[in-house]
């Protein structure tokens, strides 16, 4: 399986991009006892037979790499869900698109760490595909939305360094805002904040953005 949930999310969003999607929506909801992720696209979609095959790590449609015999994106998702007793549902219609929806228990011992979502979001938004991507990320009651088209309108070409630096700053500021544990739990004891919980280890994720306040 992927080392982090963020890596798995990027991989699944890239599936949507490779399916020719022009509209992709990624919703991540982190609550007390559940991590919910929904990726919805309007790409080419799959029929029931292809969808069943896509769960097999030794199946690929052969379009991307003629001589390859593996396709690991969805297989990694199924493996993670199976190993951590989560749930997954994929709805796909040929010519209409695909929706991948999964729920994971953040306290499960075998669940990979969540990872650095700011890095993931910058990589996904700055991907040069011809289409739009909307990311909605919420942690308990705090949330933010980042839309690729709006960000291009403000920043210009997202492969340019100046734009990428500002994009990173924008995403990191918003990640810091929703991970602000003082705001979520103003009186919680530091030792408790260090424990693994719904949104992972608060302090580790907070420290990613240079704001470890303990």
């Amino acid at each position: 399986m992927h080392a982090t949930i963020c890596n798995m999310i990027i991989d699944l969003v890239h599936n949507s991009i490779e399916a020719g999607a022009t509209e992709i929506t990624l919703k991540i909801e982190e609550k007390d006892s559940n991590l919910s992720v929904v990726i919805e696209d309007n790409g080419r979609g799959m029929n029931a037979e292809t969808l069943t095959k896509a769960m097999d790590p030794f199946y690929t449609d052969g379009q991307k790499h003629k001589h390859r015999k593996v396709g690991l994106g969805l297989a990694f998702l199924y493996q993670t869900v199976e190993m951590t007793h989560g749930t997954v549902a994929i709805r796909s219609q040929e010519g209409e698109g695909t929706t991948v929806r999964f729920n994971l228990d953040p306290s499960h011992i075998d669940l990979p760490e969540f990872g650095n979502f700011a890095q993931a979001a910058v990589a996904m938004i700055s991907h040069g595909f011809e289409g739009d991507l909307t990311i909605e990320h919420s942690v308990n009651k705090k949330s933010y939305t980042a839309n690729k088209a709006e960000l291009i309108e403000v920043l210009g070409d997202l492969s340019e360094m100046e734009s990428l630096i500002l994009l990173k700053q924008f995403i990191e500021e918003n990640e810091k805002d929703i991970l602000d544990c003082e705001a979520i739990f103003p009186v919680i004891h530091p030792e408790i904040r260090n424990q693994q919980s719904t949104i992972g280890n608060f302090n580790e994720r907070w420290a990613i953005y240079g704001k470890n306040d303990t």
Partner: protein
Amino acid sequence: MAKMTLEDLRKLREGKKAEMTQRDSSDKSARIIIGMGTCGIAAGAKEAFDAFLDELSSHNVTDTKIAQTGCMGLCFSEPTVEVEVPGMPRVIYGNVDDKVARRIVKEHIIGKALVSDHIFDKPAADIIK
């Protein structure tokens, strides 16, 4: 902690634009292309991407573009990164972790010298020292 809005971002961008007009905007930009297939992601391409961004930013290198592609077919040496610098051979580097990404910025993009011990494709062997 206050949330950053698109309007805040727009103001920052306008400030940067004013700075950019002061600079010479020669069309000699380098390009970094990072392989972001499943293999690349699993091997740390996201971290390499972030390291390039951070290192270029810390050296104030603004005339470089960063793009992404899928698997380059060199899964055994992921993360793989293609680097194009005007006047230099185009190369594909392999096993580009955080440290190697920072070396590529300092030695190849700024110093104009190939990071020979991480080249996995091109140029021909006789020009790799």
